[in-house]
């Protein structure tokens, strides 16, 4: 077992395994599942114009998100990663199963924190609110991204690179977490068995995260594992029926409104606020913070 976990692996194989899950899963998991969800909506007579326009808006925000990140040069960040990796890192780790496993665990833990900050600082919420603003909950919502959603992940993955993990492996692990997370956006799957619900993030836990019910606010930030929430005091089980969305509903399926509503709300809040110090505090304090 130890020998298996520490045996040197070939990069070409590792990239291939990630490719099967990270890239191809769209074809063999996500799309078929979304079709299943649409059939279910139709059966429940919930397949209406709003739902379809909402799903289309979700996909458009994903495209807009990618374009924004290319524009900001964020997708070209690997150069910085490699510079850090070659100059400010612990000894580089061998490529073996333990390293891959630990890289995914750390990427998942980083995801927990970046996600928590996106909810708890004003500027983070201005972009992440986009993801939460849909009144529906299905696979397409997973693709609903805000304009600056990729910035915090970069800050949080650099420490992993500094711990000696190859930047490409870190990047692949982050996508792995994101794809796992995508699969949780569904109402079709109820609660899973107790041990699974205890350790892993599940559709049930993630429905709670998307709830606008007061007790569900800022809960269940995890990506793959829910134990981070249990350890760090943000866990909440699904009990009351979840009402999806945000506390101030958006009531729009216009992709432009959807994509920019967080930024424009933040902007008008800043404009109303007096004093430079208060303006800065609005950016870094929780989104519900008000100057005295």
């Amino acid at each position, binding site marked *: 077992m130890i020998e298996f976990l*520490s045996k040197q692996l*070939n990069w*070409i194989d590792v990239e291939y395994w990630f490719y099967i899950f990270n890239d191809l899963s769209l074809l063999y998991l996500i799309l078929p599942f979304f079709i299943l969800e649409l059939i279910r909506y139709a059966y429940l007579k919930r397949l209406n114009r709003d739902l379809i326009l909402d799903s289309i808006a979700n996909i458009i925000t994903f495209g807009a998100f990618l374009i924004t990140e290319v524009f900001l040069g964020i997708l070209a960040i690997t150069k910085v990663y490699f510079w850090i990796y070659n100059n400010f890192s612990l000894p580089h*780790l061998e490529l073996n199963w*333990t*390293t891959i496993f630990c890289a995914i665990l*750390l990427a998942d833990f980083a995801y927990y924190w970046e996600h928590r900050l996106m909810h708890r600082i004003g500027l983070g919420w201005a972009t992440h609110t986009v993801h939460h603003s849909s009144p529906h909950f299905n696979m397409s919502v997973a693709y609903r991204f805000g304009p600056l959603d990729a910035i915090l992940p970069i800050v949080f993955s650099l420490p992993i690179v500094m711990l000696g*993990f190859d930047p490409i492996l870190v990047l692949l692990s982050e996508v792995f977490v994101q794809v796992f997370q995508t699969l949780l956006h569904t109402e079709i799957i109820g609660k899973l068995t107790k041990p699974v619900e205890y350790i892993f993030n599940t559709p049930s836990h993630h429905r709670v995260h998307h709830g606008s019910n007061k007790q569900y606010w800022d809960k269940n930030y995890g990506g793959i594992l829910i134990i981070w929430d249990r*350890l760090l005091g943000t866990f909440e089980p699904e009990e009351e029926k979840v009402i999806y969305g945000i506390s101030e509903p958006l009531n729009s399926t216009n992709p432009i409104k959807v994509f920019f509503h967080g930024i424009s709300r933040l902007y008008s809040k800043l404009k109303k606020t007096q004093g430079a110090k208060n303006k800065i505090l609005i950016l870094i304090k929780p989104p519900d913070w008000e100057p005295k």
Partner: protein
Amino acid sequence: MKSSTLLFRSIAILIVIAGVAHLVSFTSTNTDVPKGTTYKANNVPIDNSETDYIIGKWSVSHQSKEFTGNIIYEFKKEGQVFSAYIYEYVDENGNNQKGEGTKILTIDKFDGYKGTGKYTVTYQEQKYEIKCTIDMIDENSFTMSYDYYGYSDVETWKKL
């Protein structure tokens, strides 16, 4: 939950996960230090005439759509490994052209007779490192071979 508790628990999580990764990585590298090369305590390789004769220029004949002729590689010793870089191209008519200096082969285990390492192939503009072995025929030639999912080849390298 108090901020100090959050910080303490988070740091503990990081230390445990990164610690396990480094421990496994460290023990696995320590068990397979390349044979044939001896190291002083501070890990600086000392000259080793049994393996160091591989250092220098080697010629390999090459035939493909892009280039037919000889490719000259230069082996250098880099810490614990030997790396070969493209030095120059000599075509059928004897014209030579400077190489890009790209690293093409790394031999990390070598006992003077046989060695293993990684060979870099470029396929559809993507670079892949595949496992390869070298086998000395005599002091002035060796074969380098690889087999990867049916993609295989044997090259003969001749000392210049």
